[in-house]
């Protein structure tokens, strides 16, 4: 206790002096020790091998950084500790590194390898943190390393690492904008991610790197909408803002028809002069719209995607995070039909209870909204009443809102409220109130007189500011209709006797001078009084007296000539040179003399010109061309990086761009005949209305629980609700699932019976069994954690969704029915249900992949893998047992290593035997056949001087001691090609000669077959999407249009094994690369007339690309 308090005391004490602390090491103490020396001490501590000393040193260094002290000279000492075992030391070193790496680039490079190692760590959190720090080091040299790391992390299994990759993208972009194109690729890939964890971060990256690439959003739009509610709050803000912009480019203005109606209702609006031009504009627009509407003769129908966005963002108005609420509010303001915008008012008013900074921003936005949509906030008028404890800036904004909300019905309450404000002690606020009253008076004709009278009373206020403000406002009001208010001018003239405030006196004099023809009798009298007191007046008043005199002289020279002369003479000898100047100037202008120039002719025009009435309008007018809630809107100036909110398009762009062909890569889809597919494309609407209703739960991160909890009744009603849904209802409820699984099994069995008998090994069955068990377990766990209540909720929501869509879907249902009728009767219903079932299982698997608790997945793969390897151990028997699944070995191709002529009689051929190379499983077995066609024997055949690319290894074949003439011999060597197609060069030696030879493997030989079940295959394939997937369309060679031929050709081209498959339209193959055991999955889906699609999924992209080429070649020739 004492130690700690002493330390704290010292810290506090030293910081108050503004000196960095020295710790409690007496050796280093002393106020006079130099910086240099003190850092020496820290260096010593960092170099020690005690973690506690290091930690102490790092803490002090971080404290220095926090206070803004320079600690850069410690860089070498600190960076050494980057690999320290102690977590806290490590973290503090990271803090230091990120802060100073930019200044010490060379030294910073020393730490890079640590992070590169971290990137490969099996623990996802360590991988993520390594990437995070690596990408935070702003050193240009490591840009390629960062790029690589980001790309790798973007396809990491863990969503958390992918999230970190998304965070790293803007970092790299700011470091090197040249990388933009590559980064966009990564963004595109991450946008397709289905987890909530990634969504917010990747959209953030999108906004920072390529906000203009709106086309990248199309395919992900619906997914983003559906995920939104589960994304963390900060991500929600970013996504909503982006989607607002997106929607503005893609959908039609929902208020296009309503603007017509508005014109009638907006009668009061035309009353304000200021709004007139705007109205004209609007009218024009409306006319256009009208014409357009007439031409179309069709009411506006909201795009279902537009509706989806509005519906999915609405619940977020209930968020505790003010930024989220504001984001939704601006989305509704910019995108929703007028009738629906109202919902945001309540939420915004709620925010007014929050911290004053939040209030400040919200009020700014409310002020803008009230100009366009006053009705929305009218019920909440009282929430904008001002409390004496509000900061002035809040008060002024509330006034603004109140003024905007004022109309004939509520003006009396508002004015009463304003009256109390005028008595406030905050003078700035009082001034603002007077301005507000002035604006109310200009806007609402009925109360203009009341306001004027009230303001006139204020003229007797003792506060100069209040009076000045009132006079200014009165002046403005009078300028609008001076002829009606001669009595007020008279009244003000009388006030000159009482009012002492110079500003007010000056204003009154100006008014009388300006409108002297309305008060022809009083004006000269006022001038008389003023002339009498001229010498005692303040300067501004004197100036106005001169002005008044001049104006009167021009209009009424008879009565005022002498007075004017008198005043001008007084002014001529005034102390103030301004006044003397003014007097001289005016005398020249108005009193005609021989010398007076041409200007005196225009004196009347100069003095009595009609001054334009000042316009009293809200400073928030027209601010809504900035996206609300944005910084630019707040400042009313474009901030850097602000993306303009585009205008609505005239005609809606093609909505089909957002259609997502559900998992095209997953072969199940291709199973349906092309005709069916075409049909689906034609009937777009039902297609996506379905996906709209259903993709939500399936795609959200915790989809598993969702799909598990969708109660039967819910899905039942769904199906009955609209026939369309049954076609591809993807939801599987838990109870259905088991049945379905069984059914699936049954089906499989049947199929197996139908086809040529595939021998089932017990282990295969059990592996499947095991898989399922695990799956079921994890599911149970999920459903445990999720309450039962969830079920009701889900079903509830689902039914409500379908209800809401009823109107839209009605037509679609009809359409569907038609198409259903058109369906050829030959397609039995059975088939449809089968397909549906398939999809269910497929989705299950897919759901399984981004499971929220990712620990489950690896366990699963591990298990099945181990089983596979177990199987492989029996590989010999395996190939015997299931000849159909393992590649036939008869198709081995021979290559020439040494020609008979160059080999002087010795010829060597080799082939890839496709047998596991027993001494080393990572090697490819190469079988060589030596033929001695020479006349003499060849002795001591062996290899030498092996030249390999780094990483490659060779297991030499045993020396052949004697190869007699005319004989042949066989030998097997093993080469580890490191999964590359680099050649292995070596010398083949005989007792007399050496031949340089090389073996280059075709890519198909770099793998070994593995056995996968269909489900495993699909699951693995689901994990190898995006950049790991290559798809090619091809036309099959005429000779290989049957399944057998395809299998034959593919297995010849690559050492893969066939995966059993329920469809005859598809062939699947699986293998692993020999060295790194990366999965290689090949799918050939055939269509009509020899069209086919080849899909290769492989972790190693290079291998994948090459393999595609090879197989393509094999299938087309």
């Amino acid at each position, binding site marked *: 206790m004492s130690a700690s308090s002493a330390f704290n005391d010292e810290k506090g004490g030293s910081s108050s002096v503004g000196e960095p602390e020295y710790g409690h090491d007496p050796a280093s103490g002393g106020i006079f020790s130099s910086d240099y020396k003190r850092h020496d001490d820290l260096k010593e501590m960092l170099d020690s091998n005690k973690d506690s000393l290091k930690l102490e040193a790092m803490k002090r260094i971080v404290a220095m950084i926090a206070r803004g002290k320079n600690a850069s000279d410690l860089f070498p000492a600190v960076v050494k500790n980057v690999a320290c075992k102690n977590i806290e030391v490590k973290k503090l070193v990271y803090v230091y590194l990120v802060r100073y790496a930019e200044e010490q680039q060379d030294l910073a490079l020393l730490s890079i390898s640590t992070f590169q190692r971290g990137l490969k760590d099996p623990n996802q959190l360590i991988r993520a943190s390594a990437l995070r720090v690596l990408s935070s080091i702003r050193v240009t040299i490591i840009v390629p390393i960062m790029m690589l790391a980001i790309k790798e992390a973007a396809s990491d299994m863990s969503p958390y690492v992918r999230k970190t990759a998304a965070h790293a993208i803007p970092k790299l972009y700011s470091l090197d904008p040249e990388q933009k194109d590559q980064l966009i690729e990564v963004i595109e890939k991450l946008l397709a991610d289905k987890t909530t964890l990634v969504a917010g971060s990747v959209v953030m990256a999108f906004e920072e790197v390529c906000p203009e690439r709106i086309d990248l959003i199309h395919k992900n739009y619906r997914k983003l909408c559906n995920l939104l509610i589960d994304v*963390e709050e900060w991500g929600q803000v970013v996504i909503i803002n982006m989607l607002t912009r997106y929607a503005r480019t893609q959908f039609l203005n929902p208020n296009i028809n309503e603007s017509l109606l508005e014109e009638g209702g907006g009668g009061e609006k035309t009353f304000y002069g200021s709004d007139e031009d705007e109205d004209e504009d609007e009218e024009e627009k409306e006319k256009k719209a009208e014409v357009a509407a007439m031409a179309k003769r069709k009411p506006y129908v909201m795009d279902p995607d537009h509706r989806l966005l509005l519906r999915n963002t609405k619940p977020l108005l209930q968020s505790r995070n003010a*930024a989220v609420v504001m984001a939704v509010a601006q989305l509704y303001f910019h995108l929703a039909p007028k009738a629906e915008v109202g919902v945001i008012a309540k939420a915004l008013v*709620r925010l007014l209870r929050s911290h004053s900074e939040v209030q400040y921003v919200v009020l700014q936005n409310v002020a803008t909204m009230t100009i366009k949509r006053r009705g929305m906030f009218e019920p909440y008028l009282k929430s904008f009443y001002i409390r004496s404890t509000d900061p002035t800036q809040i008060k002024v904004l509330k006034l603004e809102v109140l003024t905007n909300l004022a109309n004939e019905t509520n003006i009396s309450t508002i004015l009463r409220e304003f009256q109390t404000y005028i008595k406030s002690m905050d003078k700035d606020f009082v001034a603002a109130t007077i301005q507000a009253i002035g604006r109310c008076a200009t806007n609402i004709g009925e109360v203009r007189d009341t306001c004027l009278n009230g303001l006139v009373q204020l003229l007797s206020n003792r506060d100069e500011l209040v009076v000045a403000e009132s006079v200014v406002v009165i002046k403005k009001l009078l300028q609008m209709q001076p002829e009606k208010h001669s009595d007020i001018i008279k009244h003000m003239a009388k006030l000159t006797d009482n009012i002492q405030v110079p500003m007010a006196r000056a204003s009154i004099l100006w008014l009388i001078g300006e409108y002297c023809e309305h008060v022809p009798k009083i004006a000269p009298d006022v001038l008389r009084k003023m002339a009498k007191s001229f010498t005692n007046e303040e300067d501004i008043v004197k100036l106005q007296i001169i002005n008044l005199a001049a104006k009167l002289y021009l209009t009424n020279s008879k009565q005022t000539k002498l007075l004017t002369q008198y005043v001008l003479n007084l002014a001529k000898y005034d102390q103030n040179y301004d006044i003397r100047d003014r007097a001289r100037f005016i005398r020249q202008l108005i009193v005609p003399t021989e010398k007076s120039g041409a200007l005196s002719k225009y004196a009347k025009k100069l003095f009595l010109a009609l001054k334009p009435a000042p316009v009293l309008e809200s400073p928030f007018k027209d601010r809504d061309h900035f996206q609300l809630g944005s910084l630019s809107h707040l400042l009313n100036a474009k901030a850097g990086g602000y993306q303009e909110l585009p205008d609505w398009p005239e005609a809606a762009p093609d909505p089909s761009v957002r259609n997502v062909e559900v998992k095209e890569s997953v072969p199940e889809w291709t199973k349906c005949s092309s005709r069916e597919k075409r049909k689906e494309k034609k009937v777009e609407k039902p297609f996506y209305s379905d996906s709209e209703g259903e993709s939500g739960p399936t795609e959200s991160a915790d989809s598993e629980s969702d799909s598990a909890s969708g109660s039967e009744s819910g899905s039942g009603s769904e199906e009955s609700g609209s026939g369309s849904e049954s076609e591809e209802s993807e939801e599987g409820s838990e109870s259905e699932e088991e049945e379905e699984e069984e059914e699936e099994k049954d089906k499989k069995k049947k199929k197996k019976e139908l086809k040529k008998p595939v021998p089932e090994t017990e282990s295969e069955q059990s592996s499947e069994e095991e898989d399922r068990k695990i799956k079921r377990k994890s599911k149970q766990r999920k459903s445990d954690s999720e*309450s039962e209540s969830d079920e009701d*909720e889900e079903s509830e929501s689902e039914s409500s969704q379908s209800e809401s869509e009823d109107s839209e879907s009605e037509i679609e249902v009809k359409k569907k029915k038609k198409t259903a009728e058109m369906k050829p009767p030959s397609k039995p219903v059975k088939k449809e249900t089968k397909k549906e079932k398939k999809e269910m299982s497929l989705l299950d698997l897919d759901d399984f992949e981004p499971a929220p608790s990712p620990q489950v997945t690896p366990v699963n793969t591990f298990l099945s893998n181990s089983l596979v390897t177990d199987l492989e151990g029996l590989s010999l028997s395996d190939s015997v047992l299931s000849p159909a699944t393992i590649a036939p070995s008869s198709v081995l191709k021979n290559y020439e290593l040494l020609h008979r002529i160059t080999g002087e009689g010795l010829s060597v051929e080799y082939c890839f035997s496709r047998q596991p190379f027993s001494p080393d499983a990572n090697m490819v077995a190469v079988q060589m056949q030596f033929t001695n066609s020479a006349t003499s024997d060849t002795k001591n055949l062996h290899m030498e001087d092996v030249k390999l690319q780094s990483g490659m290894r060779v297991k030499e074949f045993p020396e052949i001691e004697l190869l007699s003439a005319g004989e042949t011999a066989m030998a097997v060597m093993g080469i580890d090609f490191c999964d590359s197609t680099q050649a292995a060069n070596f010398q083949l030696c005989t007792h007399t000669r050496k031949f340089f030879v090389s073996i280059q493997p075709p890519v198909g030989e770099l793998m070994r077959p593995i056995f996968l079940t269909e489900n495993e295959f699909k699951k693995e394939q689901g994990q190898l999407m995006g950049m790991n997937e290559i798809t090619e369309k091809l036309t099959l060679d005429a000779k290989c249009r049957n399944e057998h031929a395809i299998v034959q050709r593919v297995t010849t081209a690559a050492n893969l094994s066939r995966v059993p498959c329920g469809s005859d339209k598809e062939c699947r193959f699986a293998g692993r690369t020999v060295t790194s055991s990366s999965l290689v999955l090949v799918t050939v889906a055939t269509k009509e007339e020899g069209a086919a699609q080849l899909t290769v999924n492989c972790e190693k992209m290079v291998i994948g690309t090459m393999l595609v080429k090879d197989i393509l070649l094999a299938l087309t020739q």
Partner: protein
Amino acid sequence: MIHSLFLVNASGDIFLEKHWKSVVSRSVCDYFFEAQERATEPENVPPVIPTPHHYLISVLRHRIYFVAVIQSEVPPLFVIEFLHRVVDTFQDYFGVCTEAAIKDNVVVVYELLEEMLDNGFPLATESNILKELIKPPTILRTMVNTITGSTNVGEQLPTGQLSVVPWRRTGVKYTNNEAYFDVVEEIDAIIDKSGSTITAEIQGVIDACVKLTGMPDLTLSFMNPRLLDDVSFHPCVRFKRWEAERILSFIPPDGNFRLLSYHVSSQNLVAIPVYVKHNITFREGSSQGRFDLTLGPKQTMGKAVESVLVSSQLPRGVLNANLNPSQGTYTFDPVTKLLSWDVGKINPQKLPSLKGTMSLQAGASKPDENPTINIQFKIQQMAISGLKVNRLDMYGEKYKPFKGIKYMTKAGNLCQFRLH
């Protein structure tokens, strides 16, 4: 997004800086200081200040300005909300968020800031996740750490960040399983001089302290949920369930959290539980003014009104006040002209009053501003809106938790009586 953060104390010193991207010179704060000088009151510094190359967005909490430096377009509320979250976290960690507390825990503060933002974008703001990463300092732990050299940084990795319920730690264990809910309502009202209500609103929150083992799933239902006009939830609340059944269903975070804030609409008549009788007069030409104030309870359903505190800003012309309270103590600050009267509990039999004279500046005319009175009070065991919790159920775990619900009514910050 957020480039840098500077913490500025009341006297205008930068005592902490943190950069998430490249370093921004602290001279950027000069623009802030300029604005600070221009503002008459500390809270009048504009939250958003544009400078030639940056934008400064600041919040003021506990007399510390948290100034964030922004370089390009970002929703200002995003930054403001985040800064408040930072302050809340500090408060959560250190009990108070003062300059001294921050300076004493500068390393923890730095570690927290490092975890909360990545490249200026919020990463982990959930206090449960942060507490797993960085343990809050306690006296005991600080002591142990200094002796053993161990650390505040959590050894285990924050799995919460990866889960579907990021707000809850896994593997929570308690011997006493308890869940407490506090229904706290605040009245915001403006009452005019005749005693009639101009506006009155009730804002309520339900704060929870849940210490339950495992992964409990709670449902909370109200007797009269229709009272709630507008609600905002902790992210754990299942929104759809609320929409459909008006039942709060949630997996609670571990420890203290705000489950719900709600608003009872101003359309309903709100009974203000306190009334004020006042007579404050200034006579023209005299240098004396009379001050007479009496408080009384109103419609409190027999519950006592406690912790009453009256404060009023008297007009500038008032030099001093010579008052006599029937109970409690009063103070008058002749510089700020702030009168505050700590009344304590209102006894309905003997109403508290404050009477006396005010001396005015000699010769000055009668002040034309009239003061307002702000009142703070508390009423235990009552929710003024009449909101009642019906039942609390737990699913998902076997044990029987101890449940407790407490009601309280308070005056909001904005409960004021106008005296003119």
